[in-house]
């Protein structure tokens, strides 16, 4: 209960941790775009290398990074299998590697499966390293508010959204703790959440959910009063204690990511032109 940490933020002192969160959001988006641009073996090798470089830069242990991937193993395996069996090479002279009753496997299918695996891995690890692992949720909220600010021109309540995010982040641990307390209290009155049919178990949750909602509303009410007392009147005219500032390292990072995308595009063009290795 006390050791609960929100998100996957992994405290360390690395270049990635110190980057401006806005630059990190931009880099993460660019990284996703780049991984989608990858089309042939060379570009995928480049993608793998860059992901490894990012892991090293972030100073986050490999074990921790792989933990986030573990949850996706099923999806990855499923996509890979799907690609292997379902992709039919219609090009001229393509000979299936295996042709056994209804199973036909082409080399193209295996390449596709491998590429997609690499793409998913790179995207998950890459965005994780830029965002969740190295950026606190609150810094992320600040970054999004700042990046989305132009949208206020078309009446999108950006400040309100970011305030909501902040409050949610602030209260998630409090409400988790409260849930635990209420569960203990009801257990002490003989509540049983673990046995019985599904319907029975769902019904057993009522004594948790009702008090939890009641308390959430009470908290919301008190918090609103407290915020009013502290002169909150929306985003207008507010200043900020923490002002986001780009540093040289942020521009360097963004430059490298841009270079990376450029490289991949170049590889794609030349790859097609000269028929380099395998192309998707």
């Amino acid at each position, binding site marked *: 209960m*006390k050791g609960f940490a929100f998100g996957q933020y992994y405290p360390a002192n690395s270049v990635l941790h110190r980057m401006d969160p806005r630059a990190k959001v931009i880099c993460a988006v660019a990284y996703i775009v780049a991984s989608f641009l990858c089309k042939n073996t060379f570009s995928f090798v480049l993608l793998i290398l860059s992901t490894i470089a990012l892991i090293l830069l972030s100073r986050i242990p490999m074990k921790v990074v792989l933990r986030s991937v573990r949850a996706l193993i099923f999806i990855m395996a499923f996509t890979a299998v799907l690609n292997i069996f379902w992709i039919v090479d219609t090009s001229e002279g393509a000979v299936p590697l295996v042709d056994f009753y209804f199973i036909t496997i082409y080399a193209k299918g295996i390449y596709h499966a491998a590429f997609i695996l690499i793409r998913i891995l790179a995207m998950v690890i890459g965005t994780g390293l830029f965002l969740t692992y190295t950026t*606190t*949720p*609150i810094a992320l909220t600040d970054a999004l508010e700042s990046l989305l600010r132009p949208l206020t021109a078309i009446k999108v309540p950006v400040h309100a959204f970011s305030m909501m995010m*902040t*409050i949610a*982040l*602030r209260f998630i*641990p*409090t409400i988790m*703790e409260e849930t635990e307390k209420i569960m203990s209290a009801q257990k002490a009155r003989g509540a049983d959440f673990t046995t019985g049919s599904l319907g029975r178990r769902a019904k057993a949750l009522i004594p948790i959910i009702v008090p939890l909602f009641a308390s959430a509303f*009470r*908290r919301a009410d*008190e*918090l609103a*009063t*407290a*915020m*009013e*007392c*502290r*002169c*909150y*009147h929306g985003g207008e*005219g*507010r*200043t*900020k*204690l*923490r*002002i986001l500032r780009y540093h040289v390292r942020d521009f360097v990072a963004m430059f490298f990511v841009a270079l990376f995308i450029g490289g991949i595009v170049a590889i794609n063009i030349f790859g097609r032109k000269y028929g380099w290795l395998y192309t998707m």
Partner: protein
Amino acid sequence: MENTPFIHIENLSYSYVGEDGQPIPVLKNLSLDIREGEYVVILGHNGSGKSTLAKLLNMVLDDYTFAEGKITVDGLDVMSPDLTDGDVLNLRKNVGMVFQNPDNQLVATVVEEDVAFGPENLGIPQPELRTRVDEALATVGMSAYARHEPHRLSGGQKQRVAIAGIIAMKPRCMIFDESTAMLDPVGRKEVLETIEKLNRDEGITVISITHYMDEAARADRVIVLSDGHLMLDGTPGEVFTHSDTLRKAGLDLPQCTAVSQYLTTQGIPVCGEINTPKQCAEAILNAWGRI
């Protein structure tokens, strides 16, 4: 200026709107003046109207259907219908409020950002904002926790952060609405010491709402409310002599005051202002020595 009270309440009555639209009276014909720099404790049982009074001063009640009388804060008529938004903001900046549940008044996920919340709303620019936050945290003794997450702090620490959040707005008056009720003795002590320091060193007017008699014993002035009526108003020593009225208002005397009063009724003259064990012991030893 010297003679105009900071807060002036005149014939104030207030009722909540009940379910059927009928008024449920909470405050009845209350008149009260509070001067700048005072340390006032408002005592009363639950439901005596003390929290409503506090919220009226700060304009955070939303229904004024059954409000009568007059409240002025620093010359500003709080219940006037033609207050501007700017007036309201200025009022809330001048009269800060700390509530009972420390969890439900912290907004940000980092201590210093929470402290900055008020001044940010007031549009205080950097670098003054930074200075205010640092000074406020230093005043409540929480500088070491500036980068901590509020939910990991103890109750007393959370409450001190909440206080810092108000101080950073540079208020002239602070209202504590049962701010120690949910704390353990250590947390209570921390918060009480902070409150006293604010009053003594920073000259902030303090209005503290509580039902702890030992907290009342430390104030300059004690006001007792019961069922919306003002029952007693005076120094702790004066108020504590009215033990019957206090009991009727659902309050206890501090144990030592009770002992000394009982001894006096038994013909043992224990004199002087007796609110703490130390004062009481001195007085009794005095009487003992005179035998």
